């Protein structure tokens, strides 16, 4: 079973945060977060003012700072990102707030279909007909 570390709502960290486990942050972090081979979730109460590097980053709360992911960045409808995103795959939900730039690796495949209201550009996502996708919404 894989460990998930949870940084609670009352915790405030200033400085560099590194780890080799999946991490969920509900508190405040100011500095730098490095969990290179693992996933990082910024919870609904999480407020991050930091450079972020992880394998997968899911933003449900607020991030101010640049995000680099080796696999995917996902911003939930309640998520807010102010900074640059660099990742091979990016998914931004309707309602999410974003100010910055998005840089994805160039792929030869066509953009993937959307699913569940998320804008995804993952080459592995199954191709859902647009009519079906619209109906889901």
């Amino acid at each position, binding site marked *: 079973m894989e460990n998930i570390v949870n940084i609670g709502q009352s915790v405030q960290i200033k400085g560099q945060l590194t780890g080799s486990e999946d991490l969920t942050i509900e508190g405040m972090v100011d500095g730098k977060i490095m969990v290179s081979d693992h996933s990082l979730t910024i919870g609904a109460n999480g407020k991050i003012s930091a450079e972020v590097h992880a394998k997968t980053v899911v933003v449900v709360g607020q991030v101010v700072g640049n995000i680099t992911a080796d696999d995917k960045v996902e911003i939930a409808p309640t998520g807010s990102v102010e900074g640059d995103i660099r990742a091979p795959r*990016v998914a*931004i939900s309707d309602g999410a707030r974003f100010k910055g730039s998005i*840089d*994805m690796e160039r*792929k030869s495949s066509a*953009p993937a279909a959307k699913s569940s209201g*998320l*804008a995804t*550009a993952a080459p592995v996502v199954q191709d859902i007909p647009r009519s079906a996708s619209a109906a889901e919404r």
Partner: protein
Amino acid sequence: MKFPWRQPAPQDGLGAVGRSGEQSEAAAHACPSLVRAMDRIFKRDKPEILDLGPFCGDTAVYLADRGARVSVTEFFPPPAAPVAEPGGTREPDPSPSPLVIDQPDGCFDLVLAWEHADFTPPDRLRDFGAEIHRVLAVGGLLLLFALNNLSRAEAMARTLGRYRIDEDDKIAREAVPAIGRRRWAHPTREIERALAPLSIQGIHLQRNQMREFLALKPE
């Protein structure tokens, strides 16, 4: 022969299939100017695109996945400058609110300004054009939409368009309420004058009375 009492739903971008109460989604329609812009900029290795919003995640991800670096900033045109009342004591504001696009000079190959010109007061339209000119790279393109006639597209006049790019030649307009924001239907010649340093490459009038302007920053 019987005719249906109700008119069929419009297919010109005004159809309102609600995703939620505050948003409506229109059918995707062709956008010839976008096709021209995409053809041109994606000949470059890693084009820089600026989306002035309202932010649509699908659009940003689509363009980034095509190989562009996409910057997103929410642009809010300034309100009209207050006019001095005839015979009144109130003077016009000597320092109107600045019209600024929060981006560096000359670095974008394509600026997607969508419908922002319509919400820019006539007296600030040139400032808007100058600011677009500032952020565009040499050889960069501007894509701008402007309603041709407010009365004939009344539903659109009350809302601000959020554009979802489905394919290079297909976009869909989603209406977001433009609360407290006045819309103008600027004459074509006024828009051309405002964009004056830019070279207009084409103006296309859509069936829904929306004009598409494609402009180039010449060397």
